[in-house]
């Protein structure tokens, strides 16, 4: 099986979020970056498991600047065979999806994996876009997958439950919790990753149709009102009369 895993770089979960340039720019100073957890823990690991079972290759793709190479190398250390970086600033989801789809179309993958969302922009858009651009089915928010030849039986999250479906390759799949278990790269993996091929290719022409014009921080919470633990009637009264939520 020829497998492609899309990975993105996101600020670490505890990163302090601040903005510069009149609130138009995310302030990267002092922020640690990681591979988007959904891409790393679930999408990449499930692809590796498939390869280990059925043979084939796992390629990582990222759209971004050279600074993203550390995240790509981590993916190679976890076990991917090779990587492609499209050398461009990822400013909008459709721009990124068009880059990935162009590469995938030329290479002809059996499955394209990505995380269900990135933990920075939380859009959940790129997977559906890539699927549409490739005219392939899309399994969103997959929590399980068994593969038999060219057919996969996938479980995906739906409103208030889950759905099981059969789907033939090729397809695009976005990974949610449950699809696989996180793997920590070992020393050997890290050493080998340095020698694995990482191809840098220029971007194809595409326009950013939606861009971020500005940021703001959510309004600060006023101080917590402490309620006597013996007096829950008072809490109920406040929830009804003051907060008006019940």
């Amino acid at each position: 099986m020829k497998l492609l895993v899309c990975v993105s770089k996101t600020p670490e979960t505890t990163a302090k979020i601040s903005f510069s340039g009149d609130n138009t720019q995310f302030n990267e100073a002092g922020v640690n970056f990681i591979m988007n957890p959904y891409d790393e823990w679930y999408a990449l690991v499930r692809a590796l498991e498939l390869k280990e079972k059925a043979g084939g290759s796992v390629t990582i793709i990222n759209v971004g600047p050279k600074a993203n190479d550390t995240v790509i190398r981590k993916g190679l250390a976890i076990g991917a065979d090779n990587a492609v970086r499209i050398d461009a600033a990822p400013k909008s989801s459709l721009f990124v999806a068009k880059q990935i789809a162009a590469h995938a179309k030329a290479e002809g993958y059996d499955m394209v994996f990505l995380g269900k969302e990135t933990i920075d922009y939380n859009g959940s858009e790129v997977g559906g876009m890539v699927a549409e651009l490739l005219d392939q089915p899309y399994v969103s928010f997959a929590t399980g997958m068994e593969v038999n030849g060219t057919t996969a039986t996938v479980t995906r999250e739906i409103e208030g439950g889950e759905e099981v479906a059969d789907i033939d390759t090729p397809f695009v799949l976005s990974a949610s919790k449950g699809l696989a278990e996180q793997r920590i790269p070992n020393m050997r993996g890290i050493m080998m990753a340095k020698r694995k091929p990482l191809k840098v290719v220029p971007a194809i022409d595409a326009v950013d149709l939606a861009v971020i014009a500005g940021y703001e921080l959510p309004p600060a919470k006023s101080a917590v009102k402490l309620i006597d633990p013996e007096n829950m009637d008072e809490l109920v009264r406040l929830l009804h009369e003051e907060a008006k939520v019940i």
Partner: protein
Amino acid sequence: MVLVYAESPKGKFKKSAFEAVTYGHKTAQVLGTQCVALTLGDAENAGQLGQYGASKVVSVGDAALNSFDSQVHAAVIANAAAAVGASVVVISHSSSGKALIGRLAARMDAGSVSAAKAVPTNDGAFKVKTNVFSGKAIAEYQINSDNKVISLMGNAIQPEVTGGDVAVEALTVEVPASRVTIKEVKTVEGTVPLPEAELVVSAGRGMKGPENWGIIEELATTLGATTACSRPVADTGWRPHHEHVGQTGVAVSPNLYIAAGISGAIQHLAGVNSSKIIVVINKDPEAPFFKAADYGVVGDLFEVVPRLNQALKDYNANN
């Protein structure tokens, strides 16, 4: 023209469909145009969407559309948009919506905004706000293309009745064949799914073990709330994964989020900071969650939660 896809799972609209139509109506007002609602497959009493501002309802009744395939649904919605002459498409940010938004944007070559939290503004540029960094900040997107696709975060706005029922027109557009075979659908009946829930009761490791969850379930039943949990609780199998709230779980935006025995780690807060009111019950007065809370109770949850349940029952009995 603004086209709103009003989801009708099992033939019935949920509140999120009315929110989407209200949003589409307001977006149409901002753009100086009208809002048309679209239903796919079975949709009981579709004319009621007029109450929320749809000038008419178009319906593609093909029974194949009763089961969801993002590829088929996106094609049909885009075909319907072309048929009614809509350049703006509004959908709910539901499970289906999350699968559709990217497909629709790519298909229509549209700028898109996912999980919008406010009605767009249009003073020269068309702008829409949404949460980013898991709710730690808000971004204002500017869409520069004529075609636009927006998914609306659940509970971001309330449905508003502005008129009466309208006519429902059957619409004939091409419905492509699905390439996905659905074998089984498992849903928990009777509870509101977390992303849509208006009331949530959530618990963490302070519960000590899964056998103690009875008091949380009772509280949720009294309130009519959906249950949720912190990540370690789901990771250890005390509760199902779909209850895991936070940066790497479900993001919720209820009116009321009650957290018992959850410390309030930054990754947990990332999933709950769109809640309108947060109540924290924790025996540790230094628990970080109190900083994000509106109301706090410092005490032992095994005493406080049943007491709160009783107080709510008394309240329900008198109201």
